[in-house]
């Protein structure tokens, strides 16, 4: 069956991607100016102290032998130990990744809930006051820097009105959803703005296509036309957008995590880059690669399912 062969092929295609990413990240990290020991020890360290730490980390070896060590470790499933935190990288990722994933998923759900109904409204009332007002509102959300929007939410809804907590991670499913609402909303608004805009354009385009006229002419009710034909086709472009925005969503999570003091991987990554914590950068990058690949595959599969022409 075509669909399952497509799935299998898609999975096989990911292998070279990983190989390439692994090599790339290994090299990029070592091309960065500065060495882990100086970054760890700071300005005061003596040359001997720096040399000693670099020797114990193995970062003074030729790059080829470092790569062999790295591969050997990787193949045995070991991502190494954080140089700055003295904790295994797998443990760090295990602690932090769920926070970021939950935040991203939460933001996506909120973004979908916001954008699909509004995009329909806007398309149906195109260029009328409602459409123009909503576009203005979204533009506002899109144009505000994340940290500014986050701080605004925190100040107004958190500190002053005390409806939501000021940052942090709650306890229990309800507590966590409650604590994560503002950060997720902060992330979702930017995403919703992008998606609503494209969705609106896609709906308009579909509404003008001949097959919709045909469907109408067949006497199908507006509800069926909108629900079956328009939504389905509009979803294709939305799913694509979700896929390509996810990387950015995780990137945007860095600043959101800082503003809302959430212990996610975004902050871990930034700290690791600035601290030249090689194993953490490598581990996280590869972890991201796996994740984003999975999401791409799911996106592609979903797209293929919505529009079978893609895999034929």
């Amino acid at each position, binding site marked *: 069956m075509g669909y399952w062969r497509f799935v299998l092929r898609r999975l096989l295609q990911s292998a070279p991607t990983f190989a390439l990413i692994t090599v790339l990240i290994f090299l990029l990290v070592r091309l960065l100016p500065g060495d882990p020991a100086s970054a760890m*020890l700071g300005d005061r*360290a003596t040359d001997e102290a720096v040399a000693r730490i670099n020797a114990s980390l193995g970062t003074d070896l030729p790059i080829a032998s470092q790569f062999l060590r790295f591969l050997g470790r990787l193949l045995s499933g070991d991502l190494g130990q954080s140089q700055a935190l003295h*904790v295994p990288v797998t443990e760090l990722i295990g602690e*932090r990744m769920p926070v970021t994933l939950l935040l991203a998923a939460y933001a996506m759900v909120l973004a979908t809930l916001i954008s699909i109904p509004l995009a329909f409204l806007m398309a149906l009332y195109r260029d009328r006051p409602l459409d123009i007002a909503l576009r203005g509102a979204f533009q506002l959300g899109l144009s505000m820097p994340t940290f500014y929007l986050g701080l605004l939410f925190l100040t107004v809804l958190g500190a002053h009105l005390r409806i939501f907590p*000021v*940052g*942090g991670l709650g306890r229990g499913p309800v507590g966590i959803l409650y604590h994560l609402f503002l950060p997720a909303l902060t992330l979702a608004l930017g995403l919703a703005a992008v998606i609503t805009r494209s969705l609106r354009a896609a709906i308009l385009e579909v509404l003008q296509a001949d097959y919709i006229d045909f469907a109408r002419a067949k006497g199908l009710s507006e509800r069926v036309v909108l629900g079956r034909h328009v939504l389905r086709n509009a979803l294709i472009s939305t799913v694509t957008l979700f896929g390509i925005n996810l990387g950015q969503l995780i990137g945007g999570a860095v600043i959101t995590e800082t503003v809302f003091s959430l212990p996610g991987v975004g902050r871990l990554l930034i700290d690791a880059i600035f601290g*030249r914590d090689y194993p953490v950068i490598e581990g996280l990058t590869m972890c991201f690669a796996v994740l984003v690949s999975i999401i791409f595959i799911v996106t592609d599969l979903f797209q293929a399912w919505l529009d079978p022409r893609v895999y034929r």
Partner: protein
Amino acid sequence: MARWQLTISATLLLALGCSGNADAAPVRGGQMIYARAWDSLYLDPVLNDANVDIWVLSNLYDTLLEPSADGKSVTPGLATAYELSPDRLTMALALRPGIRFADGTPVLASDVKFSLDRARDPKAGQWNFMLAAIDNVTAAAPDRVEIRLKHPDPTLPAALATFNTGIMPERAFMAEPGATLDDKAESFARHPIGAGPFRLAEWHRNLSMVLERNPYYWAPGEDGKPLPYLDTLRFEIVPDDATRILKLQGGEVDGAEFIPLARAAELAGDPDLQMRLFPASEVTYLTFMTRPTLKDGKPNPLTDPRVRQALNYALDKDAFIHVVHFGNGKPMTSFMPSTTPLAVAEAPLYPFDPARAKMLLAEAGFAKGFDLSVMIRAGSAEDIAVASVAQQMWGEVGVRLSLEQLDNATMTARYRAGDFQIRTGTWTNDIADPSEITAYFAYSPNIESQHSGFKDPVIDADFEASQKETDPDKRAALYREIQTRFDEAAPIAFLFESPYAVALRKPVTGFDQIPLGNNIFAATYIGD
């Protein structure tokens, strides 16, 4: 013969009383939540590298002696007294009777020997230089330790009050998995046991750290019962300055560190809060590269002391303090923070005098000015402010400064390679002694005077002599000469000293941050 019998009560009460509410009796129990800007990285006294560890370690690990509240001397800690032999080559310390670690096991002389031997191992960490004079440590009796020195060392008492000599339980440490001491330390530091006022209960990295009362802690409170007053101390990690303040204002935390000085006035006016500015050992300055040529081979104008002096005269320190720290700070009086023992703190250096700056530049052959560049830490509001103000003020005397923002690791790498002209710098002392800052700033054999290439044989000789000089007056004279010569040669631009800014909710009493930066929660309580 030098013999100091230190008594607890006077000095300790002095230390604790400075922020206390003298009338009300302390309230026992309860939890305090303190918002920190960064989480700790490595709770090992010997192998840590950063202030995020150093400043909280004393709550977990106690030392033989403790820094006094003003940062200039020491008070008793796990040792009640120390005694120096007439030749000043042996120090004997008497351990306090009945002291225990947080797991209930007694603190023995063997634990002290183990801890000091590990701390002074030249291969362990980057703090062992402070104990370099020690020849050997012996456990003379279960409650008596003897330290023999290679040469007399005036810094030893201060070193024994510094975080890296925190006493650790040998047996518990050695029971950790791992082949080497470093491996064991990695494991031990995740659930450390010391003899400090608190012990670690929970640690969720970059989210929160919970310390609970150590029931075996020795120091008594004002009510005669042992400290600490708090049952639990909870650190929440809130890296964003604005969010940290919002949490405090929203009542979600009881205190917050690293308050931007821009907001100090606003918070001081909040009726629910107390804005505290603790005297610090923090100086902000610019390091000049003083070698004759730059890394790319071009001649370096900063090699001429007159140019460096001119650049110092061209800076209006009061304007700096006004713009960068909103009036909270004071001009530097020496390269050392004025809270450092033996610091010369008489008058601000290089008072603002643009005419003199122009004259000196003309003398040096730079009447038309020249181009300079400064490395600053990317994204640091304070570095940008310092460099922007310097850019503007030097522009007035014809010196054109360009700014280069670099991430920390890149900046450190270029600094170490001497590949820079000017860089921003901030220093805080870790030890209550002038030797640490002098070794980095002025004594060239260590790190070439902050990698500036500055070298003064008289300063180098004075410093070496001072490290063995146990006569306080002679040592003070050596340090006076070091400071005079350094300040005159001006291998740095002397900017300002600043306080530690902490905001607390009104009922919080007895919290202290000493000039070395240590956060002292032992006598903290939440009043009514």
